[in-house]
Structures are given as structure tokens and as C-alpha cells.
């Protein structure tokens, strides 16, 4: 069966005064129907720009480069005109943003904002749209939805606002929901409620979810397949159990080791030294080279392709060819954060 979304060689570049920032630089992956795929990475790795690209929400000076392909339900999203794209956005693909306050309009009631989505895409009457909005708000666990629908965003708590955004995203029963750090702004007990709700609604509607987050805990608990991004590229992709059991790329490994885990306290946290290079000037070879404890000089700084390293497991690391080098780590070329960065 063809995947629901199939992205090939997506390149989203920003033409800034200091050069071309290649925020997303040749990304390819699939999302199957009903699947939850996670994208994990740190600030500036390109995960959010990937999400915005899928919805064609990239503003100048940013641009999706020609040659990029985003096949969705049999059409290439890159070549759709604005009118066609509007019919996809919020209808077949919707998005849940991180900041529920800035994603809602403060001067309309939340019921109106949820109903508006149904009015635009389903062409139903005001009354029908309102009823549908109240019903969807109820599905997201908002108590007394008919009352809450008449309230304004500022009258709701952060958790309630996030439920409103989820209702907006789900009212049209889209094929794909992109959740960009949907719980990062929330407290941990509210985060648990919201993740629980998303997983429950996904089962009910059979929606695919693209979960974008920096939190490996959220990834482990919600996704079935994980993509790790670094410096505008996919550096590793694997089923979730495989990734956590056998991380291959040294960046993935570093990310996992630098997180403190409750119940497994270590005396000192491992760090990934240094910082991400500038997107206007990615290194020619491996983009993790300077921060890597296993790196070695390859002729002409060969840029690593994605190697097969296991069942459905790919990694952009030369260690795939010379695995014995993992036994012999060395201090990375970048020693400390402060030094050599800036």
C-alpha cells in the first residue's frame, strides 16, 4: 500500500543577508495511514521547518526548492496552487502548534474558531458548524462544552486551550495531523492528559500523526517509528523499540545519554560538546564531525549517505562501514561549548 505522505528530497532554504540557510536540506521519509511517526531533534535541526513545509506555510525569504516532492493522497503538495492548498490545509492535513495562546485569536470565542474550520471546509451552515464544534470540543474532554464554546481564549487554562486546538485540528477528521511540540508549553500532569487524549483520538479516527518534539520521553511513549534530525538532515530512522535499544548515530547516542533519567541517576551527565554549526555554512562532510567522539578523517570530507544498519533502520554515519571504531572513542575536536562556538 502506498504511504499516506511520501516526502522525497525536501529542501527548504532561507535566503538571508548572511547567506542561504539550508534549514531543511534533502529530507526523505514516509508516513503510513494510521501511523504515528516522531521527528526528534534540538533547536535549529529543521524539524519545525519540515512541518511548515508540508503545509506550505513557508514565508519569504524561505522557499521550498524545486525538485522537492511531497506526495500526499496522490498529489504533489509542492506544485499545488494556493487555492488547492487551502483545501488541504485544516481539512486533510491539520496542525497543532506549541503555543496555544498565540495560535488562537483572542477576540473570537473558541466555539467560533473551531466552527469556522467546519464552515470553510464542509460548507455547512453556521448552526451546524457550531453544533459540530461543541461536539468536537466535548470529544477532547472539555467539560460542559456548550458553555466553554462561548468563552474567549483568555478565560481558559493552558491545557484547555490545547484541547481547543486539538478540536480545531480534528473537526474535519483529517488524514494527517502534524503536532509540533504539542505539550512543551504545558505542565507535566497536563501533558500526560493531552498525550493520552491524542493517542485515544488517533485510535478512534485512524488519523496519522507526525509528532515533532525535542523530548525523547514523548517519542518513546507515543510513536511507532522515529526520525532523528540534525543540521537540516535525517541522521537516523528506526522503529521506536529498535532506536532506543540500538541507537546507531553518535548524535542519537549523545542525545540519549545527556538526558537525566528518573531512577537511573548517574554521577555526571554525558554532554555533547560544542553547538550545532550555522545553517548558512554546513560542514562539507559529516555535519556532526567536530562534535563526534568517533570521527576520523576521510578523504575530501565525504558526506555520509544513509546506510542500512538493521531492519528498517538507517543511519547517516560512516561507522556503518567501520563499526570497530566505536570501541575507540576520542575527545571530540570541539572541547567545550563556549570555546569555538559563537
Amino acid at each position, binding site marked *: 500500500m502506498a504511504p499516506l505522505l511520501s516526502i522525497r528530497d525536501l529542501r527548504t532554504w532561507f535566503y538571508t543577508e548572511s547567506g542561504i540557510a539550508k534549514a531543511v536540506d534533502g529530507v526523505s521519509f514516509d508516513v503510513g495511514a494510521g501511523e504515528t511517526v516522531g521527528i526528534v531533534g534540538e533547536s535549529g535541526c529543521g524539524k519545525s521547518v519540515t512541518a511548515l513545509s508540508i503545509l506550505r506555510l513557508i514565508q519569504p525569504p524561505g522557499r521550498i526548492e524545486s525538485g522537492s516532492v511531497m506526495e500526499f493522497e496522490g498529489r504533489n503538495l509542492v506544485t499545488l496552487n494556493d487555492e488547492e492548498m487551502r483545501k488541504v490545509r485544516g481539512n486533510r492535513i491539520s496542525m497543532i502548534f506549541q503555543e496555544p495562546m498565540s495560535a488562537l485569536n483572542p477576540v473570537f470565542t473558541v466555539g467560533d474558531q473551531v466552527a469556522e474550520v467546519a464552515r470553510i471546509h464542509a460548507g455547512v451552515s453556521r448552526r451546524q458548524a457550531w453544533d459540530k464544534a461543541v461536539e468536537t470540543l466535548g470529544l477532547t474532554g472539555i467539560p460542559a462544552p456548550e458553555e466553554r464554546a462561548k468563552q474567549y481564549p483568555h478565560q481558559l487554562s493552558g491545557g484547555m486551550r490545547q484541547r481547543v486546538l486539538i478540536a480545531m485540528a480534528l473537526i474535519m477528521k483529517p488524514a494527517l495531523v502534524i503536532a509540533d511540540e504539542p505539550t512543551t508549553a504545558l*505542565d507535566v500532569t497536563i501533558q500526560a*492528559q493531552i498525550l493520552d487524549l491524542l493517542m485515544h483520538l488517533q485510535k478512534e479516527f485512524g488519523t496519522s500523526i507526525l509528532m515533532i518534539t525535542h523530548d525523547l520521553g514523548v517519542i*518513546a511513549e507515543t510513536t511507532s517509528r522515529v526520525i532523528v534530525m540534525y543540521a537540516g538532515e535525517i541522521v537516523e530512522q528506526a522503529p521506536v523499540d529498535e532506536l532506543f535499544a540500538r541507537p546507531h548515530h553518535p548524535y542519537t547516542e549523545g542525545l540519549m545519554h545527556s538526558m537525566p533519567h*528518573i531512577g537511573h*541517576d548517574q554521577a555526571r*551527565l554525558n554532554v555533547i*560538546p560544542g*553547538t550545532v554549526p550555522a545553517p548558512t555554512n554546513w560542514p562539507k562532510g559529516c555535519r556532526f564531525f567536530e562534535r563526534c567522539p568517533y570521527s576520523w578523517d576521510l578523504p575530501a570530507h565525504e558526506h555520509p549517505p544513509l546506510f542500512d544498519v538493521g531492519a528498517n533502520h538507517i543511519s547517516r554515519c560512516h561507522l556503518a562501514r567501520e563499526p570497530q571504531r566505536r570501541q575507540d572513542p576520542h575527545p571530540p575536536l570541539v572541547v*567545550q561549548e563556549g570555546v569555538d*562556538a559563537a
Partner: protein
Amino acid sequence: MNSAAGSGQSASNPLLSVRNLRKEFPIRKGVFSRQVGSLKAVNDVTFDVSRGETLGVVGESGCGKTTTGRAILRLIEPTDGQIVFEGRDVRAMSTSELRGVRREMQIIFQDPVSSLNPRMTIGAIVREGLTIHKLAEGAAADARVSQLLSEVGLRPEYASRYPHEFSGGQRQRIGIARALSVEPKFIVCDEPVSALDVSVQAQVINLLEDLQRDHNLTYMFIAHDLSVVEHIADRVAVMYLGKIVELATADDLYREPLMPYTQALLSAVPVADPKARKERIILSGDVPSPASPPPGCVFHPRCHHPAKDVACMKIVPPLEEKAPGHFVHCIKQTPTTISWEQQKEAGGVHPPERYLPLAAVHA
């Protein structure tokens, strides 16, 4: 880790001792800004911090953890209570005395962007404290600034640059250098790593631990991230609606959380191990408004303890010692000084019992 760590409230000769601290913010309404109520941000908080230890303070937004940290330094004027730092009563101090004691008590802020003046060079930011407290001037001050920058892992040449030229992690290092410049004994770290990426967060945590060891610093480490606090803290205070609801060594708190709120909080943390999918205590609803906290136990409307009953709405639980050094705010978790007779009198129907759901245990 620390000999005083296990002794809880009764630590002998603590560096800082806080008793019955309260901070209320007036709620005003109408044309004449008449006071119609008060928001109890910090509601009767008592704890000690021993020399050389790290006291972690955790809780969700609005629980009062940041207000507590700032009230201790009198950056926010407390409404009531006692703050004793090295035997000196901080609340009784005049402005000039306070300036003196602030040299010994510093703060590191969450947001490394807004807490650095964008018009000052890094050198000037770090040097300011030296000048104000007359610790060094001229070439001696320059040398001290260079030394501080290299101590926090920045190049001394960076002194002439401006904050916008630095990454988030580097700015947090600058904030740390500024706090260290006046040779403090005690630092309130208010969410120092929550704005940072995971890999940078680890760098800053390691730096804070190194500095603590090298300078014999005492930290109050405020954070909402429970795994970070477990890593760095010797003892942990859990706050909910302006109150400390549990206080114990980090080991005890994470191995045997006794307050039902702490149990829910720990069970809610997503675990970065797909094989460890576990039961979760999902709390219903939101945190009530601190302007009208529930009567009795502040947590009772959301509590999942099987013995919860009417008595929980009537009796304000004391923060009582349930195990050596393990203080808990709950009349249903045994042992308790609120007798079953007293609870029955208040309408209680379920006798107290020890309740420790597996979902909460991180062992």
C-alpha cells in the same frame, strides 16, 4: 551525599532557614482599585537549607516555587514569616544591610535572553557586581572578569562582545559568571536550564555541579523538570498551590513518593524507554486558582488516594514526618498525627492507610 541532607527540618545550624513564609498578592477591582481578595502565592512555607547542599523545589506553573525563591532574596517583599540567613534575620534588614547580604545570596534566572542587558558587554555585565560591592577595580577587576569567564567555559576575549552574539547555553554561562563574581555562599537557581536544549542543558548542569564543589556553594534549585531535579538535588521540596506538600531526600522521594500529588507528578513524566510503558495516574481537571484554594488539603479535589473522604476537605494537613527526614502533607497516608477519632469527628469514613501505587515508583 551530605550529612545534613537526611535530617530534614531539624538540620543543625542551617545556612538558610525559612519559617512560615507567606506572600499574598492583592486582587484589585473597580475604579478605585478596591482590594477584593488576595492570591496566596506562598502559603505558610517552612524549610531549611544546609551548607553545601542542593535543595530542589519542584511543582507546576503557579505553585509558588519562583515566588518562594524571590521572596527569600526579598526581590519580592514577603507578606509574613521569617527568613534567617547565617543567623541574620533577612526580613528585618535595612536597604543597605540587604545590599550587603545580597552579595552572599545570588540568583540565576531562567531566561538567559531577558536577564542580560543587551547594551552592556559581557565584561561589563560580569564586572558590575565587583564594582557595586567594591571587590575589585581597574586591572584587578579585568583579571577577575577573565578568570570568571574561563571558569564558566567562555573565552576571556568574549568580554568585549554583546549578549546577542551568544547562544542560549553561553548566555546562561554568562549569567552564572555574573552570580559568581561576588563570591556568594547561596544561589537561587530559578529554572536555569529549562530554556535550553537537552545536550546544552547537560553542559550547564555539569558546570553548576563543578562550581558547587569548587566553591562550596549552596543551591536552591527551582525547576519543573523532575528528572533534572533528581539528578542535581540532595533533598527535594514538592510545592502545590503555595504549599510544600512533600519534602524528602531525592532518593526517598523518587523511590517512595507518599503525597498523592507527588505520585501523580512522577507517574506523568514520559519515560524515554519504549519498553517501560507503564500505568499512569492521570489527574482530572486543572490546578485550582490560588485566589480561592480548596479548604482542607489543597489537593483533595484531584486526589486519588483510596481513603480520601470528607475529612480531607475539613482538616488542613500538617507537613508531618512519616519516615525519618520524609515530610508529607497528607492525613490519609500513615502514620499521621491526626488521629482516626479526629478524622471521624470531621466526617471521615475511611481510616488512613499506606498507599503507594506502582505507577509512581521510579526505582
